[in-house]
């Protein structure tokens, strides 16, 4: 019985930890509104460029490309912005700074695994972002006329899937960041990772626009579950079965990510010799 109680207590304090972390970030986010908007404008240009280019091509083909209409392309990239917002996590490039400034040493003294700090912090930032982003999304809708008619189930799956994407990407980036503890020149590897992600995640184009071989590669990598799947869940016409198996795939990649975080963190910390305080 006491074991049960202890476990319940551990879960409760973890939930409390996450809620507090998120609340702090929500307050910070609302304090720096101008900065948040400027950052968002910079971020928005990426999907708007893709949208314009692919829509131009679709128009040249009489309005559709590979069976996808101009309105659907618009919907894809507008939903993209929302998914991208959820996909922002602690960057692996940041670990170099953490090590150099002695942040990591301080973090190691705390009783909770560092991954939880990042997960709680960035999850909290989503809320102010979401609220401030809403008018921009409406504006984009007026400009580009997306065609978006999701079923209720698709909406539900979408909201689960964007959090799934957030978890997968957080874990993967944490694992990448761990490489910094072995080599300070991990930058090149991060870059390869991000460019691969760009090409086979659905970030650049809906995966169906890619050649068949690229789609086959994408099927075996975690990337499409963080961009293409959540976007398509809302925009595309996926069957109920595809939607639910998609969520299972996300669970699988989250489980793999968690295991890797656990293992790589142990190995890295053993290797780590502190800098700073």
């Amino acid at each position, binding site marked *: 019985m006491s074991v049960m109680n202890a476990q319940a207590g551990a879960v409760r304090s973890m939930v409390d930890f996450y809620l507090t972390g998120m609340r702090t970030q929500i307050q910070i986010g609302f304090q*720096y509104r*101008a*900065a948040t908007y*400027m*950052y968002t*404008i*910079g*971020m*928005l*240009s*990426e999907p*708007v*460029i893709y949208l*314009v*280019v692919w829509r*131009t*091509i679709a128009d*040249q*083909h009489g309005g559709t*490309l*590979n069976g996808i209409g101009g309105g659907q392309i618009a919907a894809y990239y507008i939903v993209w912005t929302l998914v991208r917002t959820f996909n922002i996590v602690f960057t692996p490039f940041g670990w170099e700074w953490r090590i150099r400034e002695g942040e990591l040493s301080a973090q190691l003294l705390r009783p909770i695994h560092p991954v939880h700090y990042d997960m709680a912090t960035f999850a909290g930032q989503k809320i102010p972002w979401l609220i401030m982003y809403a008018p921009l999304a409406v504006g984009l809708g007026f*400009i580009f006329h997306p065609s978006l008619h999701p079923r209720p189930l698709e909406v539900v799956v979408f909201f689960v899937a964007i959090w799934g994407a957030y978890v997968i990407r957080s874990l993967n980036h944490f694992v990448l960041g761990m490489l910094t503890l072995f080599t300070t*020149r991990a*930058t*090149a590897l991060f*870059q*390869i990772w991000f*460019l691969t992600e*760009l*090409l086979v995640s659905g970030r*650049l*184009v809906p995966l169906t*626009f*890619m*050649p068949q071989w690229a789609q086959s590669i994408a099927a075996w990598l975690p990337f499409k579950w963080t961009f293409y799947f959540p976007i398509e869940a809302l925009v595309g016409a996926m069957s109920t079965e595809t939607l639910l198996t998609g969520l299972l795939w996300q669970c699988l990649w989250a489980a793999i990510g968690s295991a890797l975080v656990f293992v790589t963190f142990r190995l890295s910390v053993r290797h780590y010799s502190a800098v700073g305080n």
Partner: protein
Amino acid sequence: MRRGLQLAWTYTRLGVLNEMQYRANFFVAIFQSLLGVAVSIAVLALVYSHTDALHGWTQSELLVVLGVQILLGGVIHASVQPNMERLTQDVQDGKLDFLLSKPADSQLMISLRELRLWQLVDVVSGAIVVAVGVSRLQTSVGIGHAFAFLALLLVGASLLYCFWLILATGSFWVINMWFLSDLFEGVYQVGRWPIGVYPGWLRYSMTYLVPIGFAVTVPAQAVTHRLHWVTVVVALGFATVVFVVARRFWRFGLSRYSGASA
């Protein structure tokens, strides 16, 4: 004027010497540049696997646009962006006061202090991409066009510098400007495609508000036989106006700056 040039030369030498200490970074920069170019070309190939021409631009012509964008990006990342980032950081940390107490033109000083030499690798790879694009064009490029191209590149670099300066001057009012690089990087990607592709409102704002249309598309027009002399005149006039405005805005910002310890 002579003193200004002397100062520029000294700072450049210092910057080069500083960067020479970290030679391994040269290879990292080459690797990053190659990777960036490879992915951009893959994206172009993907786009042109679905179409022959994008808004009238063929794949070879778009290679030229891409090359110009990479080349100018190299110039900005090597000499403009690091200086402007340092400016905003110095305002925030209160270190700008040290610079202002020196007996030289403040705009010149804040624009010269940093040089990231290895980023110039992008200038080389951008130039190669332009050359490949030009060599694949159906028509040849004459001396006049080549000269106009180089001149317009300088105009483009100057416009982008002014744009950055205006943004960074904003730090006198908005102290925390961590988002500037993200904002610029995001918006600069617009230049990857000819400005004519974009819908009207975006095209105008990316030409006059953010001068990326002038900076990237216009030089590319010079070597793809799309350039009209009116465009050249407008570009030159616009660049002059923007330079004056940026300088005035800098002085205005400076006059409002009360210093960190005052």
